[in-house]
């Protein structure tokens, strides 16, 4: 299968499994993508969707932004491009606090902040684009297995 598959989902955590199912199924038809690479893709897309959903979710008991998030999968020239779009108001990527290395004992104070590092490590390239009212995360996956990963430091 090539071309584009687009999925619009309610901005709620219980759709994450469906998003993973769809990107997994779209890429499963590509002979060059093996099981491990498909797992990489499922995890990276899931992290991006989690961030999109959390950005739109109500913080103070309100219902949050009810507009759907968009997952767009494009297969072209043997590689996969996945875009995840939200209306969550965007964020300052440069301003992401740098966590201490995981091996640092103080790392244990941080139970979050591994999502974007995982996306970076699992994709071949990622771009965070600011949209009018939110974020578009554009991830590109090549079919080869990851080179020996460097741990986050």
């Amino acid at each position, binding site marked *: 299968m090539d071309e584009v598959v687009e999925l619009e989902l309610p901005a709620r955590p219980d759709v994450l*499994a469906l998003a993973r199912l769809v990107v997994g199924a779209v890429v499963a038809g590509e002979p060059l993508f093996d099981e491990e690479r498909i797992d990489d893709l499922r995890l990276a897309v899931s992290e991006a969707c989690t961030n999109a959903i959390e950005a739109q979710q109500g913080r103070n008991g309100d219902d949050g932004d009810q507009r759907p998030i968009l997952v767009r999968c494009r297969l072209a020239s043997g590689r996969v491009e996945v875009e995840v779009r939200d209306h969550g108001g965007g964020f300052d990527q440069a301003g992401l606090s740098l966590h201490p290395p*995981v*091996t640092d004992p103080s*790392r244990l104070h941080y*139970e979050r902040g591994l999502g974007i590092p*995982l996306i970076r490590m699992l994709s071949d390239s990622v771009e965070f684009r600011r949209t009018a009212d939110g974020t578009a995360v554009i991830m590109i996956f090549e079919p080869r297995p990851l080179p020996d*990963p460097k*741990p*986050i430091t």
Partner: protein
Amino acid sequence: MDLRLDVTERDGWAVLAVGGEIDVATAPRLREQLITLVNDGHHRIVVDLGSVDFLDSTGLGVLVGALKRVRTHDGDLALVCDEPRILKVFEITGLTKVFAMYGSVDQAVAAD
């Protein structure tokens, strides 16, 4: 949704067997289960991830939180994981250096 939790005891350890998918939708149940164990006085916990099909950063965060919690009680948290797809998530985040990780529950409770 699809998360299975099952607690047993073994040689002084509480063994929490987890099955299914751990993501931001299901992680709260895992977190609550771990907090309950600690509050009930279980400070030596084995989390058996052998039947976990998917684990995201939220799941990692819950495990880090649990490790922190048992340590404040001078306890221990050991992970059991032999699935390459799940191991890889610990490896690339460097968390294999933070957790005591074993290939089976037997090994986890024997190590000491």
